[in-house]
């Protein structure tokens, strides 16, 4: 086995290299690098022709191969894989595995249990949060004042109208003697702000149009029945008021019909 000293004959100018900066493949090395030996000689003379691949051997075996610089391959400062130091991850370790002299098997079960507990709880909380958000967006009773919303309820249209103060007041003042089917407004609603009626015309079963007609309520286009804001028949062929289904308000934001 040839010794390093004899093989490095051609590279005697570079023999004193110990530590060197590494250049990229096409950038020349700047002379003036950190040297550990007493004799200073320039590591790489940039005026000399730059060979394809150069190895910087040390003269004594103590310095050895520190750097490889080449145009064609990568530049590296690592000599062998055993020089790779695995970093110290103590800052990120759980306390049970901080001590390198303790087997990690002992704490294995507790660490596993903790991880799965956190994962499981986060999943449960996350699902609940998602459900809340979704329900908030999907089933919000956000009907603006004066507007009517139609829902399909047991196969029939259900009108839910958010009445304005004016409408409430005017409906309450209607003279019952004028009505074909006399009913006071307060007998038809539980909460005067909300009128909930089944949107089927009592004449021949068409669906009236909301916020239409001469009385500020509903208008059935089939035969011209006019209903008021309380769903009572005022003009036209229909004989009865719009049907009020059974409903209840469990709280102010929710109504259950049926």
């Amino acid at each position: 086995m040839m010794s390093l000293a004899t093989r490095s004959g051609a590279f005697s100018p570079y023999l004193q290299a110990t530590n060197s900066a590494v250049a990229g493949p096409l950038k020349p090395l700047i002379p003036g690098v950190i040297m550990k030996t007493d004799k200073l000689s320039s590591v790489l003379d940039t005026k000399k022709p730059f060979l394809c691949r150069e190895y910087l051997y040390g003269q004594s075996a103590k310095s050895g191969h520190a750097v490889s610089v080449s145009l064609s391959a990568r530049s590296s400062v690592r000599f062998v894989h055993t020089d790779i130091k695995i970093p110290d991850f103590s800052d990120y370790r759980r306390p049970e595995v901080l001590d390198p002299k303790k087997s990690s098997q002992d704490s294995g079960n507790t660490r596993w249990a903790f991880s799965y507990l956190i994962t499981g709880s986060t999943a449960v909380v996350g699902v609940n949060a998602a459900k809340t958000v979704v329900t908030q967006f999907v089933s919000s009773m956000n009907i603006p004042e004066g507007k009517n919303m139609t829902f399909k309820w047991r196969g029939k249209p259900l009108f839910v109208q958010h009445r304005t103060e004016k409408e409430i007041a005017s409906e309450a003042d209607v003279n019952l003697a004028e009505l074909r089917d006399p009913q006071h407004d307060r007998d038809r609603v539980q909460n005067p702000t909300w009128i909930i009626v089944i949107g089927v015309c009592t004449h021949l079963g068409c669906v009236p149009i909301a916020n239409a007609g001469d009385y500020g309520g509903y208008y059935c286009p089939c035969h011209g029945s006019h209903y008021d804001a309380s769903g009572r028949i005022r003009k036209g062929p229909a004989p009865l008021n719009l049907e009020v289904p059974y409903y209840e308000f469990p709280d102010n934001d929710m109504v259950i019909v049926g």
Partner: protein
Amino acid sequence: MVSSMWRISGAVNRALARAGYPLLLSLRRGQASVSYAQSLLGAPETQLTTLSNGFRIASEETNQATCTVGLCIDCGSRYESEKNNGAGFFLEHMAFKGTKKHPQSALEHAVESMGAHLSAYTSRERTAYYMKTLAKDLPKAVELLAEVVQSSSLSEADIEQQRSVVLRELEEVQGSLQDVCLDLLHATAFQGTPLGHSVLGPSANARILTRNDLVEYINSHYKAPRMVLATAGGVNHDELVALAKQHFSGVSFEYEGDAVPVLSPCRFTGSEIRMRDDAMPLAHIAIAVEGAGAASPDIVPLMVANSIIGCYDITFGGGKHLSSRLARLAAELNLCHSFQAFHSSYSDTGLLGIYFVTDKHKIEDMMHWAQNAWMNLCTTVTESDVARAKNALKASLVGQLNGTTPVCDDIGRHLLNYGRRIPLAEWDARIEAVTPRIVRDVCSKYIYDKCPAVSAVGPIEQLPDYNRMRSAMYWLRF
């Protein structure tokens, strides 16, 4: 009674052989081969003697003209610190550079004139110096081994010269990517612990280790209770004991300041290390979980489990008829160039894993199927898989011991790990006791839902993210 039967059969065999009737050695006359059952019982018992200083001598006497004499020492890179990591390896290089009585040329002459082979190896927990020689040269062999270990000259000039040799060897090892990959696997799996040290040691240490470091290493670790002189071949045990008394009685058994080095457990960390280099043609990847120590009862089920996965090389001719399922897939889907299931066990821990070499576009598939094989072991391994693996394992255990050197190594290893030589019949019984349920339970204990350590070298862009490999360590379907 069984042991006496062994000795009798051994004696009968020897008598028959000496009388010149080798064919009569087999109990079934007319057949020259030996059945499996006979091979279990045919080996003579290993005889063990301990000297007063704790030095152990073990030998298996078979009727041969040659023998292997080995000195196994319970020390290795696991006993080294960051500062002197690589001292054992360096010392191994210095071992044959001459002793106080035999300078290098005299040592070489002595060995070569006998026609003997003298060599050594260092591993993480064991160092061994062994000599393969003719049985009649046993006294000289023991003398030389004793000198090499106890009175190596360790001259400064030789040390300086060996430095460059060690550095050159370190550089050459970079070409053996299997060694690099498995070294990195240990470094990351046992990070921060002595088992993470490579046997070779860092190049910085190779440059600054001094004679004092080597002498200190010898004084701390080359102690009689940690040494075993193992011999296999045509060697008489009593003769060997006499020689050992003559040469090894002087080995010290006391430590300076009573500082007995005690091995503390080594923490395993599920982690990964990626050494990417797209210029390399093939990727070398190893994935491992923490395995069982040598003395653990789970060793045999894990060996059976590894036999189920087996090994494969692209040169295997079996193709889709290979017995291991992973090997069949590797052949049919062209998944890899080679793979092997391994279990490196140390005294109290181990690494149970699969190492494979593959093309850069097949890494993800190969990793998927390798972990699938592990899951199969933990969940659905069948009676036929286990039966086949048990047979393969038994055959390989018996077949490995085909020469004095493997037997000598076996003796040394067993004595250092278990304190006694475990006979083949006992291994056979322990293997026979393994059932699919035991394989499933043991594998689940070590593999299922555990964090693996992964090391990868080469063009490894396709290697999945660690979290995905971690997720493949359990099945949601199960």
